[in-house]
């Protein structure tokens, strides 16, 4: 049987590993990804894991692309099938001309019968059983062994792999030897039995200098650390948990008083999300920068307090690491389906300032900015990332910090300022920007006021008076206009003569940019705008005005971004064509290209 070999694909392929969760495959997968990264090749890793501790199928996908297109590719060139339970599915997923590697200790030639796929059997279990003694290490070493096999097949730099092993097991020499042995065994087997390297192979480049491989929960936590957040309250929920885990780890290292050992931070694991947001509001009311990471179900629970924070004008920073809804949904899958729930969270006329980072790098900067915005605008600010950004490793530019940075603490009156006032009125807008000055508890008797979610007038007193109430809510509306000027401007790539544009959000960024390149190859030019904040600024309105056809690309079923545009701008809805992706896996460039092409075809037919 001969299979047509694909054209050589140097530095342009997708490797996928199917495994069983809880078997320690994560370190093997991360080693593969990092070795490619250190070879200077643009790479990304996406983890498709179950909501489970041990025993269910899990996949890890590594895309290598010398051009830097690092959205999910949607194809599999090399599959490592380590989970017999998913052999059938994994086999079916390999692209024509691709390769499937499996543990041939138990041969499955009947099952793996596709004529257009190369099947490479490696008796991983047999080799492990022959070389390692105890049962647990046989399982773990089987995983690390495929790193050796792939190193030979993909021509990875063995010196880099050795270096990564040394770093990982610096403190455990016995483990280092066993892992090195497993890699060498896998490498030798592949060299002896297969023609190495495959047409899909890595070649050293210099395209990852000044970059890091990092996930967005870690960078958001760094943003909180650098923004000076001191109180973090949370309730564990996938996929946001690792944000607080990272914050705690950083605080342990960078927030301990060197002399007293005291913790210059307070992390509180709340009893639920209702408690978590209550704590954030309490801490912010008292002047601390405070935040809570959560996901969709947490946002649902926080609605009551979000309305409270909006109406009483207390800063708060939330991270909604979006996962697949509705309800419990698919906790370990990604989506952008909380846009509406966040924009107008809570009953009554409420609206919230939102930030939409596209990747871990932006998650860092926007986390910092979220605290400035929350304190400047005295209102909750929600940073909407998603599971793809939060938990997957992305290649990002190095994060930079300007040591001259001064946080914007907003209009908080000092003792002297309070004393100089004839009388302090909490909700009196003296600057015309919709933002009234606040005081912190304990500062001065004259600065005292009563924070209440019930009707209040511009002086801060309780009211049920029609006119007094309306003055306050109208000012809140004006404050939202101020917010338009303060949220980050959209990212725009546009040529003036082009009247067709994309309008997208968050983690769609890579897929849409890749789609632009693919469409350009077929002669279709489409401009690009990615919203970075809500309320939408003038730049978004101008872009909508200057295009005749706008493809709104987002990862939810109900076109929530499109709905927001229709509600919050003057756009003619007929100009807005949705391109939607919502199956829980990250969006593909192909989905975007197909969406545009279908629309163009409809246009021609009409």
């Amino acid at each position, binding site marked *: 049987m001969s299979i047509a070999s694909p054209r050589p694909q140097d530095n342009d392929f997708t490797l996928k590993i199917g495994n069983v969760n809880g078997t320690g495959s994560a370190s093997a997968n991360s080693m593969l990804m990092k070795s490619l990264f250190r070879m200077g090749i643009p790479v990304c890793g996406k983890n498709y894991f179950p909501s489970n501790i041990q025993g269910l199928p899990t996949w890890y996908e590594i895309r290598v692309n010398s051009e830097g297109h690092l959205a999910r590719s949607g194809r599999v060139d090399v599959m490592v099938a380590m989970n017999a339970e998913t052999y059938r599915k994994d086999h079916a997923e390999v692209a024509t001309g691709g390769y499937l590697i499996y543990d041939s200790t138990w041969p499955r030639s009947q099952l793996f019968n596709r004529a257009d796929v190369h099947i490479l059997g490696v008796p991983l279990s047999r080799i492990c059983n022959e070389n390692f003694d105890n049962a647990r290490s046989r399982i773990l070493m089987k995983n690390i062994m495929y790193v050796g096999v792939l190193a030979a097949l993909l021509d990875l730099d063995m010196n880099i792999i050795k270096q990564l092993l040394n770093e990982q097991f610096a403190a455990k020499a016995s483990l280092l030897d066993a892992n090195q042995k497993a890699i060498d065994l896998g490498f030798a087997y592949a060299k002896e039995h297969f023609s190495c390297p495959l047409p899909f192979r890595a070649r050293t480049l210099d395209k990852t200098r000044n970059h890091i491989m990092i996930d967005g929960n870690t960078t958001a936590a760094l943003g909180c650390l650098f923004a000076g957040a001191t109180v973090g309250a949370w309730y564990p929920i996938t996929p946001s948990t690792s944000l607080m885990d990272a914050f705690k780890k950083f605080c342990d290292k960078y927030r301990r008083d060197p002399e007293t050992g005291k913790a210059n931070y307070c992390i509180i694991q709340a009893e639920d999300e209702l408690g978590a947001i209550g704590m954030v509001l309490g801490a912010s009311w008292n002047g601390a920068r405070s935040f809570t990471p959560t996901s969709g179900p947490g946002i649902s629970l926080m609605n009551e307090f979000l309305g409270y924070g909006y109406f009483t004008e207390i800063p708060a920073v939330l991270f909604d690491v979006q996962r697949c809804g509705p309800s419990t949904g698919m906790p370990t899958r990604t989506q952008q389906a909380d846009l509406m729930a966040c924009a107008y969270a809570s009953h009554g006329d409420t609206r919230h300032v939102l930030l939409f980072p596209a990747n871990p790098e932006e998650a860092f900067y926007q986390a910092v900015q979220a605290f400035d915005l929350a304190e400047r605008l005295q209102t909750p600010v929600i940073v909407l990332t998603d599971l793809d950004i939060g938990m997957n490793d992305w290649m990002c530019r190095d994060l930079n910090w300007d040591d001259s940075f001064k946080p914007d603490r907003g209009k908080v009156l000092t003792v002297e300022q309070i004393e100089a006032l004839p009388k302090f009125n909490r909700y009196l807008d003296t600057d015309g920007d919709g933002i009234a000055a606040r005081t912190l508890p304990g500062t001065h008797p004259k600065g005292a006021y*009563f924070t209440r979610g019930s009707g209040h007038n511009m002086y801060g007193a309780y009211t049920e008076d029609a006119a007094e109430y309306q003055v306050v809510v109208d000012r809140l509306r004006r404050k939202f206009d101020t917010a338009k000027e303060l949220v980050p401007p959209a990212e725009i790539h546009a040529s003036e003569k082009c009247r067709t544009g994309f309008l997208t959000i968050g983690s769609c960024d890579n897929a849409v940019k890749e789609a632009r390149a693919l469409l350009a190859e077929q002669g279709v030019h489409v401009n690009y705008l990615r919203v970075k904040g809500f309320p939408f600024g003038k730049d978004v309105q101008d872009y909508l005005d200057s295009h005749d056809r706008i493809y709104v690309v987002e990862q939810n079923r109900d076109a929530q971004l499109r709905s927001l545009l229709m509600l919050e701008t003057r756009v003619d809805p007929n100009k807005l064509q949705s391109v939607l992706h919502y199956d829980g896996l990250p969006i593909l460039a192909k989905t975007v290209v197909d969406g545009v092409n279908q629309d163009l075809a409809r246009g021609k037919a009409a």
Partner: protein
Amino acid sequence: MSFITKPKVAHPQLPRNELKLTVRDYEGAMSTLCAGCGHDSITGAIMQAAFDLSIPPHRMAKLSGIGCSSKTPAYFASASHGFNTVHGRMPSVATGANAANPELHYIGVSGDGDTLSIGLGQFLHAVRRNLNMLYLIENNGVYGLTKGQFSASADVGSKAKKGDTNQQPPIDPALTLLATGATFIARSFSGDREQLVTLIKAGMKHRGFAVIDVISPCVTFNDHEGSTKSYEFTRKHSMTAIYTDFVPPAKEIRTAYEIGQAMPVQMHDGSQIVLRKADGAYNPTDRVAAFEYIQKHQQAGEIVTGLLYIDETKPDMHELANTPAVPLASLPFATVCPGSKALASIQSRFR
């Protein structure tokens, strides 16, 4: 409800505390509760206690949830910041506020609906954290603002004004607190001002979560015959298990207590409370015995009042979190931002 606002002029003979303030400096806005409401007596007791302790009004923070009880923080200490949160969620706001600034005196005022129904979860978790605050439950067994539904503290057999009889067993705050590890548990009656003021002072000085369950009759919806939370019923059935005296720091203990009955408890700021047993069988430092005692008397139809349990030795939230004595909110930015060099070094692990 009183319709006359008292002029803000202190009588020259009014006693002044260490801050040269009179009790009138601890007043708030005019109460809008019903005339004769137990809650107004509690408000008065809070003002008296804060005056007696010479707490600067602006160094107090008043927090509450929703309901008649939760309106009351507006009626005392106008010079304190107040936080009227959403229903049943005051403990979480108090937790965050306290995390940011441990220096203020936190006084939470809640009701039986706010604490024992919608807010039971948050309430018990504040107990678990041993949050340093005074938490008052103005307990009247009824929802007043929504006109007379039973609350979770209504006794079995208690009659509503409209005639219904409560069938469900009550959640007793004292027993619940004993079971969940609370470090300061007291019960009082809005009609016993002397006891209440002392307990409030002791509770404010307690380092940790101090709860006073105050039976506070609702004159409009739960003060009729057949109610077990009426003035008459409470007067008739309450029994003091223990008398409490509060002794400020640096003051000598002058009252002579009968030997074997006086039990001084040292508070963290140097003040003392002295407990005198009304009943020799009672021991307010023995959790198991206290539980048994309260429950036994409850079954006999008696409401046990006084400082029912105290443990001054348990760490509070800040001690457990090892936070500094100064407010986290006051730390300079340079202290909390690690700076560019640290960021560079952190990133070396991500290559």
